Structure formats: structure tokens, C-alpha cells
């Protein structure tokens, strides 16, 4: 126990300042009203859905939870069910085998809800494109509010995308 406490004290606080929202990430047709966005304030629940990604974006979503980015410190946390979620964070091109699961997850998320598409494949199909097995971008299957490009996007970019979605339009 002594070693454990010593290590915590020695490590100190690593958390860095969060990025500013970026209007360029916002897709024009954001479906939510400003006042609803304000409601999410500092208590946002996110449900992550991998709709067919290579697991690269997942690594960075994990990283958003580490001490440097400390997403929970901003009042944002990942939840185990879409029923508890305000936002879906969706990665991948949508594989055809995930279409039903993704749509059902979207339907199970209570209104008002936000969808943030994470990664190049989620934005435009990426290297996998559209094929017999892939539907391409997330917006081909469910409505998307904010897109975050990158392969994979950095944790800062992911955080910025999330913050953009919950910030009110200027």
C-alpha cells in the first residue's frame, strides 16, 4: 500500500487543458437546438459503437480516458448502454453486418441525442470505401452531427469533436 500511495504522489497531476471547440467539424445539418445543447452542460454520457473499424480509432478513444486528456474530469463519461447515453461516438466504415446493430443502438438512445463520427472511415468510408460488405461512412446509415477526421484522429481531435458537438453554435 505504501508503494502504491508513493507512486500516486510521485506521479502528480498529468491532466492537460482541453482543446477549444472547432466549428469546422460541425456538419451543417446539426439537428439540435442550442438550448438543448446547453442542457448537456457538464454531464455528458457517451456510448461508443464500433460499426466495423480496424480498432485503430478505438485505441485513441481509450487514450481519451487516460490521465493526460482526462475526459471524466470534464464531466464526460462512457456508459455501457445506449439507454444511458446522450451521444453516440461511432467509428468504422459501417460494415453491412453492423447496419442493424447500429440502427438499433441509435433507436435505443433517448432524444435529444448527438452522433459524432470518429475517423476517416467514419467520415467518408476511408480506405475500405463502399463494397459488398461495407456501407462506407456513418452518415449513410444514421444521421451525424459532427465528424472528426484522422487515421486515427488524435485524442485531442476526438475531444475537440465531442466538445464541438455540445457547444452552442456561435
Amino acid at each position, binding site marked *: 500500500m505504501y*508503494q502504491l500511495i508513493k507512486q500516486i504522489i510521485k506521479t502528480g497531476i498529468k491532466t492537460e487543458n482541453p482543446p477549444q471547440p472547432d466549428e469546422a467539424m460541425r456538419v451543417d445539418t446539426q439537428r439540435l437546438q442550442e438550448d438543448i445543447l446547453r442542457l448537456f452542460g457538464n454531464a455528458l454520457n457517451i456510448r461508443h459503437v464500433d460499426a466495423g473499424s*480496424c*480498432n*485503430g480509432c478505438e485505441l485513441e478513444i481509450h487514450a481519451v480516458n487516460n490521465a493526460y486528456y482526462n475526459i471524466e474530469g470534464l464531466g464526460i463519461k462512457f456508459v455501457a448502454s445506449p439507454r444511458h447515453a446522450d451521444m453516440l461516438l461511432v467509428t468504422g466504415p459501417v460494415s*453491412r453486418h453492423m447496419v442493424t*446493430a447500429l440502427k438499433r*443502438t441509435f433507436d435505443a438512445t433517448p432524444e435529444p441525442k448527438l452522433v459524432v463520427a470518429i475517423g476517416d472511415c467514419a467520415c467518408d468510408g476511408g480506405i475500405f470505401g463502399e*463494397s459488398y*460488405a461495407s456501407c462506407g461512412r456513418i452518415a449513410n446509415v444514421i444521421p451525424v452531427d459532427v465528424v472528426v477526421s484522422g487515421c486515427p484522429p*488524435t485524442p485531442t481531435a476526438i475531444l475537440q469533436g465531442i466538445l464541438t458537438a455540445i457547444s452552442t453554435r456561435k
Partner: protein
Amino acid sequence: MPITHPNLHLTRLAGAIPAWSGEIGPDDLQPICQNVRDGGGRLVALWGSDTREQGNGYALHVSLVNEAGLICLSVPLPADLPGYPDISQIFPVANRMQRAAYDLLGIYAHEGHDHRKWLRHGAWHGGSFPLRKDFDATQSRTDEADAYPFVQVEGLGVHEIAVGPVHAGTIEPGHFRFSVVGEKTLRLEERFGYTHKGIEKRFESMSLQQGTKLAGRVSGDSTVAYAWAYAMAAESIAAVTPPDRAVWLRALFLERERIANHLGDLGYLGNDVALSFGFAQFWILKEQVLRNNAALFGHRYLMDKIIPGGVAVDLTEPGKRTLFEECAMLEHEVRVLRGIYEEHAGVQDRFIGAGRIEPKLAARLGLCGLAGRASSQAWDARVQFPCAPYDKLDVQMATYRNGDVAARVIVRFDELFESLRLQREILTHLTHDDILSAPLEKLPANGFGVGMVEGWRGEVLVAMHTDAQGNLTRVHPHDPSWQNWPVLEHAVIGNIVPDFPLINKSFNLSYSGQDL
């Protein structure tokens, strides 16, 4: 010669690892597989290809490994009845690969005891096969509801728990069907294929260079291993040797990928037994490794840094010093954290005995990679088939025999320290030539090449076939998760359901890598 058989004539393939190829008739497949199995060998990969444009039918390809190296067998199959003898009785791991080969190409195992589909759900209908050259994507579309008969467990008080494809955490999609009595797991059955996005078909329309990027995204957490195996396969066909500095840098990248993933897993294993301190600490270390990657090589996960012929990025002298300092820091910190894990009674109570795979079962089922080594399966491609620069590094293999979560944690710690030692050695030996890659624009016609790399999870194989114009006609990436997923079904038997996330994480297998 790795094996002898009267009807088998093997040709040595050029390239970094000892590999042979040869053609056999269907009748010789089982005896040769049995021969390799009896000698302690394993099945690495099984795939099919459409060779009708070359005037043949289809072909089954089987890659076996024994102490001498890789043995790649091709079995020509007639176009009208493309059947071959079932080898899943010899290598149980062949079961899912044979089913996948049917779903994608329509070649099938005679007497196969499991005829359920594997990669196909509802994206294309049963009579069409995506990897056939005359496959028509629009005609094959179907909206059929997906049906899959799970094995039912019957008895008083038995019930099923269905999990997935969307999981509770930040994990890839897949379905797990538990049959339980109370808290105890009687049976687990996995159902995958949810992330199938047509990777193998995609390769067919790509140039060698475009394919490099795709290979690095078969499983994002193993991008270095896949990119290297892909490059190795191309270099094997073209008989090109990458420059000295390039192979040292490749090994540096591969060990850094192992370090980053092992750090991440050790953190999550702590988290899964309610020691969130472990997650916080190990992920601070992992983040520092990733940031150094970004600063020195331009990508946090080193994607697209290995290319056919060599590497796409160099390491500067100041960068070298940064990595030496990182090594010293990590060695110290990980040693402290290992002490804390080992002395923490609550952690050890959850780790020890959970999800045990006895060495005998591991050998029978072909468990490989890190999980295999935790169950006494002493296979590590860096040790048995050391391609340059591993031939100069004398890699120490980490093995343990308990086969439980604790053993997989111990192997991770040991490999982490070994990778840090290797990183130091690599930095010391890194030669000073300026050339980072050998020219490799175009591949020879009708070639076959193979690459195999010991990634952090296990051995990653990429097989490559070219057509009469030297274009990619078939690329098959193989993930070690094919081998290890079926063993997870055994590991959880008798364990309580709440231990599943812990046991699953201790294997940490890829969905995307096997769904393709």
C-alpha cells in the same frame, strides 16, 4: 527440407524467413498435415483462391509451420466440384478457416462436421461468393434476416446470456452466447463476422503501394506487424532485400508496438479487477510512448512507416537519445508497478487460476502467440525463425506454464522488459547508411510470396499472389486471433460470468483481424 513425402516437391521461397511452397493433390493433404502435426508442427493459415482465369479451377492454400519453417501447400480443386478433405480433425483450428473459405470462395471441406457459415451474415446470399472473380456485388445483395444455430445446452436451471455485437465497453463488435447455471459458465460460443468489410476483395483492385496502407489497417493495433508481413511477402516474390538500416528500424517499430500494447493491456487488466490505479499509471506510460512515436516518426501508432522495400521514415541522433531516456524511464516505472501488482492481494486473487488453459490443451488446439507462451507453447517467430535483424539480437522467449490470467500477465511483463532491452540493442546497432529502402515498384508475374512476423499478439502472416501482369490477384492476411479465439471458449468454462471480461482482456484478441 522441412518435411518429406513421396508426392511433395517443395521449392524454397526467397525472402527473410525460411519458407517453402509446393503443390499436392487433395488425397495427399491429410497425410501431410498429419505428418506435420505428429512432428509437433501447427497450422498457421488456410485460404482459397480463384485460379479459373489461369485456366485452372480453384485452389486451397494451407500454411503449416514446424521447427524448420513455413510450409505453404497449394491444392488445385476442380471448378465444378471444389471440395477437399477436411483437416479440422487434425488441426481443430482449421474449422473456422474452412467455413470462412466456403463463405468467401465456395470451396468446401468434405466430411466437415460443422457446416454453419462463419463470416457471412446477411450482406450477401448463400449462393454467391465474394472472392470469385466473377462475383457481382449488386446481384448478391440480400435482406434476409440472419439466422445462426447456436449449440444449445439443456438441463435444469441452464439459461443463456446473449452479449453483443455492441459491447458494454469500448471494444470491437462480436457476439458471445453464454450458457450458464447461476454464475457459472457451462459453455461459451462465439459468433463473429460483424466487422467483415471486404478487405481481401479490396486488395484485388489495389496496387502494391495502395495495398500497403490497407495491410496496415487489417487490425489497427498491429499495424506494424501487418505492414512488415506485407512488405516481407512482396520482397519474397520480388527477391528484394531491404537495406540494413531499414530492417533495424522495422524491428524498432515492432518492439515499440509491443511495448505500447503490453502497457495498455497491463493497465486494463488492473482496471478489470477494480484497481483503477493500474489503468491510470500504465496509460500514462503508454501515452508517453505514443507521443514519442508521433514526435520522432510522425504517427502515434507508426502506421504507413513500413513500405515494401524498406521504411518511410528515419531516426535522428537526438531522437535516439530520446528513446534511450524513454527506455530508462519505462524500465524503472514498470518495475515499480510490477511490484505493486504482485504484492496486491486483491489483484492476485482475481488473476490466479482465472481462465486457465493447460499446456496439453493449448498444444492440442494450437494456441499461439503471447497466450500460447503463457501455456508453455514455446513458439516465437523472432526466436525460431529470426529474420534480420533478429538474427543478431538473441531474443529471449518468455514462457510460463500456468496458463491462467496471472500467467498471461507475467508473460506480458517479461516481454515488456525484453522489448525494452531489444530497443536498446537496436538503437546501439543501428547502422549509419543513408538508404532507407530498396526500389520495389512492381512485382514479377505469377508469383507467390509469404511474410510472417511475431506481432505483440502472436504471429501475423501475409500471403500474396500475383497474376500474369504482376498485379495483386490475391492477398490473404492472417491474424493469430483465428487460432486463439476458439481457445477462449475453453478458458471460460467453469469460471463465473463476471470473470469473462478479465479473461477476455488477458487474451485481448482481434475482431477486425479475423473478420477481414
